[in-house]
Each structure stands twice: as structure tokens, then as C-alpha cells.
């Protein structure tokens, strides 16, 4: 299950990046900042949460690097430099949160919690959040 979510989050992020690159001349700076912050936060959270459940304490630096770099590339391709700063910051913030949540889900004794159930719901929930954010972003493209 986390593998499907990982791949679909990467596909959705690439789709967002291509669409932002196509529309880069019509974006104002504040709009690009807001949109890229939301996209990079959701993508970093989903990618690193499912990646932490897939790789299990190995290769987490690759997931973290992918999330930060995706925000950076997505911001740079939209044509505004301040948007790339915002994307990198929100991507690294979201991926830090996702890695922390994934480690707590794998080993709840880190926070002094008893054994939990239903851990597989969490990546699905973050993917639902990413999809809802994407729909809101698609709806706001027509009003600049």
C-alpha cells in the first residue's frame, strides 16, 4: 500500500510542476508563493511518510532530499525566486514532520505510547490531504 501512495504522489507532483511551468507567465508573485508552499508541504508530507514506512530507517536521507529538492525545483520552474525559497522551506518542514510521524507509527514507544493499530490509515489520510489541496489549487488557477 505505501508503494502505490509513494508513486502516485510523485506522479501528482510532476503533473503540478509541468502545469506551473506552462503557466509561469500568468502567475503573480504572491499567488506563486502560496500555491507552491501548499503543494510542497503536501508532497513532502506524503512522500516522506510513505517512504518512512517503506524503507524503515534506511535511506531516509534520500526521501528527505527528494522532498526538499522537489519544492525547490517546483518553485524555480514557476519563474519566481522567492517561490523557490518558500517551496524549499515548506518541503523540508513537511518531510521532517512526515519522517517523525512515520518513526512514531513504526515504534510507538519513542513517545511513550502503547502499541497502536490501524497504522496503514495514516499514509492514505495524507494522500487524501494532498489530493484535496491539489483540487483547491486547480480550482484557483482561473482566478489569478
Amino acid at each position, binding site marked *: 500500500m505505501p508503494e502505490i501512495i509513494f508513486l502516485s504522489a510523485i506522479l501528482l507532483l510532476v503533473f503540478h510542476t509541468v502545469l506551473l511551468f506552462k503557466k509561469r507567465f500568468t502567475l503573480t508573485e504572491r499567488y506563486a508563493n*502560496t*500555491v507552491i508552499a*501548499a503543494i510542497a*508541504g503536501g508532497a513532502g508530507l506524503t512522500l516522506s511518510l510513505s517512504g518512512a514506512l517503506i524503507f524503515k530507517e534506511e535511506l531516509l536521507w534520500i526521501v528527505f532530499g527528494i522532498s526538499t529538492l522537489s519544492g525547490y525545483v517546483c518553485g524555480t520552474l514557476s519563474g519566481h525566486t522567492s517561490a523557490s525559497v518558500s517551496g524549499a522551506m515548506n518541503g523540508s518542514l513537511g518531510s521532517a514532520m512526515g519522517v517523525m*510521524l512515520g518513526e512514531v507509527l513504526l515504534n510507538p514507544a519513542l513517545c511513550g505510547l502503547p502499541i497502536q493499530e490501524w497504522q496503514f490509515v*495514516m499514509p492514505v489520510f495524507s494522500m487524501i490531504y494532498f489530493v484535496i489541496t491539489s483540487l483547491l489549487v486547480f480550482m484557483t488557477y482561473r482566478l489569478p
Partner: protein
Amino acid sequence: MVFMLYLHIVITAVCLKRFFTLRDQTGFHLGMNIAMMTGAFTGLLTGIILIDYFPFYFVFITMISAVAGAVTGVVTGLFYDSQTALTGLANGFMMGLMGPMIGAAAGFSMLTVILEIAFIFMAFLALTAVPKS
């Protein structure tokens, strides 16, 4: 302990009513800060208080606090702008995810009281900053 949650809901409702009446005089930058602040503090406080009551349901408490923070951020942001609503959604969701982890690691301590005092102080500062924006 659940009194703190009740107190937070009442204070947030009073502040939001005041922000709603002043929404025409508020600049977009201050509006963005207000949306981020209310969403983030609602998510954090909901997570910290609820994980102390139900420590066996970490996943569901995380989902509930994330949704609470996101909804508060969106409702506050819709007073001003659609971009403000998007910012409030992202920030409230992130802080709502972090809340139960902090609450489980730290326990119910003075943390909740200090966060509530910080929220009241920040809401007061935002209310006084409205005529200058």
C-alpha cells in the same frame, strides 16, 4: 484538562467574531498571519489534550486534530481571500499532525497553559495591529 479545550474554543470563537467584523480594514499580510496562527494553535492544543485522554488511539487522534486545525485555518482564511485560506489549510494541518506527538512525549504539563497564554497574547496583538494594516 478538558476545561482547557473548552476555554480555547470559547476564546477562538470570540476572537474570530471580532476578526470577522474587522475584515474590511485588515490587510492581506495580517490576514495570512491570523489564519496561520488560529489554525496552528487549534491543531496543537486539540492534539495535546486529546492524546492525554485516549493514548490507545494515536492514529485517530492525529487525524481529528489535523482536521480541526485545517478547518479552523480555512474558516479564518475565508474571511479575507482564497490564497489565505490555502495557507491556513496547510499550516493548520501540519501543526495538527505535530500536536499528539508533543503531547505524548511531554505529557499534560504547563505546556498547554503556556500555549494558551501565547495564543491570547498573539490574538490581542493581532487585534491591536488591525488599524495600521
